[in-house]
């Protein structure tokens, strides 16, 4: 069968052709699969980048508790600049939006921040809330965050007046090693940008160490609102005082804490009641004034007074009405206040049961202030102390050397009794009686009660009041993703 040898090449030919066909088919499938994998990788990374930005948003929003927004806006961070990019012209609308970004979107997209190139320059940026290189995450990505002041009418983007700021976070996710990309040999980052408008509620930004809200007031104990001549209600600001100073009996005040050359708008006692046709807080103020004997008048001092000096006592209702702080008048609404109190209870660090007799430990410190919520009556003593925000729904009694730094709200029963020895408050106190109207589910204000006696000390401190309301979670007014189509072009 010699002829078969001559035909063996046919098999080779057939095998070769079939192999080529199969190889082409296989290659085609591999290329298609690679394209699909690339698209999947980039979709996955895009989602991760957005989630990184959301992680940054949640973390930073929470961290903004206990901060002074103006101080954050004025703080600066050195942020490296790794590449050249165009910046919109100064004073343009596009520049406003561009500068809200913690880093330039072009850098976010292009730079390998794990192994960055040599920096070209360093920018000094206000309101930065992460390290200049961003905060790395376990996902392999990282985020940057920055707050920017809104247009609050003061013409100054580093001073907050209305408690509202923009928070913008940029999250990135870089393709992992071995992941293929539609950019060919150029590896890029997926970028997600989130902008939120945040608001710090300033309803409780009191302007006196002792604010009483209601149509009038009655004694909590005995026949008088005030007893003895040893108490001290000081409505000047005490910006440098600490809880330790309060406990040690050391105090110093200033009459012009804001440095504008005029006495501050603070008083020893603010009597407030929104009743324009009925004299507002004047009946309450008059009752308080009528209860003070001659030896007690000069125990109440401060910058403002309806009596030309001491006692520093005023009807503070108009001050609240005309306060540039847009939240100030929320206090006129008892339902708002009680909703606020109910919500705060949900985030309290410590909850005390009705009838608690507290002492021996602390309810927060200057360094670690906390929210304390008491469900009913509460007696604080034992030469102990507290700092932060204290809310009491029943009677609050200070006794046996208790000191508190921060903001105290005595609402609900609105019954405050400060008759112990060496007791003190550094910050502010609000006493208001609230009554629930079962018919329509609303709240209204009633007549509060209080007694101040012994050597009780009330020292106003704006920072102390801020220490209290700064503990409240910052509110989210708006949340949106930023993409080129909704951003002024830059």
């Amino acid at each position, binding site marked *: 069968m010699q*002829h078969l040898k001559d035909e063996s090449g046919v098999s080779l030919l057939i095998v070769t052709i079939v192999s080529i066909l199969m190889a082409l*088919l296989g290659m085609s499938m591999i290329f298609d699969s690679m394209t699909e994998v690339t698209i999947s990788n980039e979709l996955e990374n895009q*989602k991760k980048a957005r989630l990184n930005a959301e992680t940054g948003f949640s973390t930073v929003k929470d961290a903004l508790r206990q901060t002074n927004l103006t101080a954050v806006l004025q703080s600066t961070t050195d942020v490296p600049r790794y590449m050249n990019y165009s910046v919109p012209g100064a004073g343009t609308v596009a520049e406003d939006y561009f500068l809200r970004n913690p880093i330039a979107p072009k850098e976010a997209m292009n730079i390998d921040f794990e192994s960055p190139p040599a920096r070209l320059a360093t920018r000094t940026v206000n309101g930065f809330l992460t390290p200049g290189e961003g905060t790395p995450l376990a996902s392999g990505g990282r985020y940057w965050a920055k707050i920017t002041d809104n247009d609050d009418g003061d013409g100054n983007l580093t001073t907050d007046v209305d408690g509202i700021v923009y928070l913008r976070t940029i999250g990135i996710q870089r393709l992992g090693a071995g992941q293929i990309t539609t950019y060919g040999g150029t590896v890029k980052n997926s970028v997600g940008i989130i902008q939120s408008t945040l608001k710090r509620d300033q309803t409780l930004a009191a302007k006196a160490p002792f604010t009483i809200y209601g149509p009038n007031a009655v004694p909590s104990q005995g026949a008088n609102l005030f007893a003895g001549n040893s108490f001290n209600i000081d409505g000047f600001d005490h910006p440098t005082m600490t809880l330790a100073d309060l406990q040690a009996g050391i105090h110093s005040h200033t009459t012009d804490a804001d440095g504008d050359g005029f006495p501050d708008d603070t008083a020893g006692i603010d009597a407030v009641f929104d009743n324009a046709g009925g004299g507002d807080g004047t009946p309450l103020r008059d009752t308080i004034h009528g209860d003070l004997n001659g030896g007690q008048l000069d125990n109440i001092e401060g910058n403002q007074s309806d009596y030309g000096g001491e006692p520093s006592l005023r009807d503070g209702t108009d001050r609240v009405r005309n306060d540039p702080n847009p939240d100030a008048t929320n206090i006129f609404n008892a339902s708002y206040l009680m909703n606020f109190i109910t*919500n705060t209870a*949900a985030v309290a660090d410590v909850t005390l049961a009705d009838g608690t007799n507290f002492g021996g430990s602390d309810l927060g410190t200057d360094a670690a202030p906390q929210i304390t919520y008491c469900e009913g009556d509460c007696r604080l003593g034992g030469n102990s102390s507290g700092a932060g925000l204290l809310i009491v729904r029943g009677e609050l009694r200070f006794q046996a050397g208790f000191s508190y730094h921060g903001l105290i709200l005595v609402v609900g029963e609105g019954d405050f009794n400060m008759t112990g020895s060496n007791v003190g408050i550094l910050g502010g106190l609000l006493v208001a009686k609230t009554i629930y109207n079962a018919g329509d589910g609303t709240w209204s204000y009633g007549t509060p009660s209080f007694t101040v006696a012994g050597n009780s000390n009330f020292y106003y401190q704006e920072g102390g009041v801020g220490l209290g309301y700064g503990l*409240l979670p910052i509110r989210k007014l708006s949340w949106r993703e930023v993409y080129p*189509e909704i951003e*002024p072009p830059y």
Partner: protein
Amino acid sequence: MTPSRSGFHTCSRGFTLIEMLVSSAVLVLIAGALGSILSQSQHSYKSQQSILEVTQEARAAMDQLCAYLRQAGNDPQAYMRTNNIPPIELLGVDHIRINSDITGSVPAAGGDPLEATGDPDGSLDNLYERVEVRYNPLLENLQLDIGHGVEVLAENLYCDFTFFDINGNVTAVEDDIVRVRVEMVAETEDIDLQTGKIHSITLESEVMLRSQSFDLFAN
């Protein structure tokens, strides 16, 4: 066997008819087998390609839809609250409108309000602010209108929305909606000749409306 005069064997006379028929039959069998393998590969390739296409299309549609849902109810200027406009309007069966004040405070160069950019402006008259989404069961497609006309977002799919309130209960009360479940079942257009079936993939997403998420101290 008698040697020929030329010295060649008589076998060089050529193939017999039988040999030709047998070899042809073998060749046909081999070609048929190869063709079958190629055909199956081709079908499999087409089938996979088709599955990938519908998967990508459904996934892209889901991503886009979820992005609109996440931002539903964004209302920093209280325009929606003032005018009693819910974040999500239930217009019909699997037909919704997603309302959100997203942009508009920086006018567009041509003055077209639709194209305005910037921060929310206290109205819903810009692109992306009234996004209408509708599943058409007759055409089996998902239609989208972001403000300049209806377009088809994805085809050959089934889409279903379920709405939940703050307690996790299914609700049809627009103001109570805080979470939305979107389920999509996308199908290949052609029947798989090998299996005789239509391939389908199911995607499901649950989206919290960020504006409705539990935020203490909201008014």
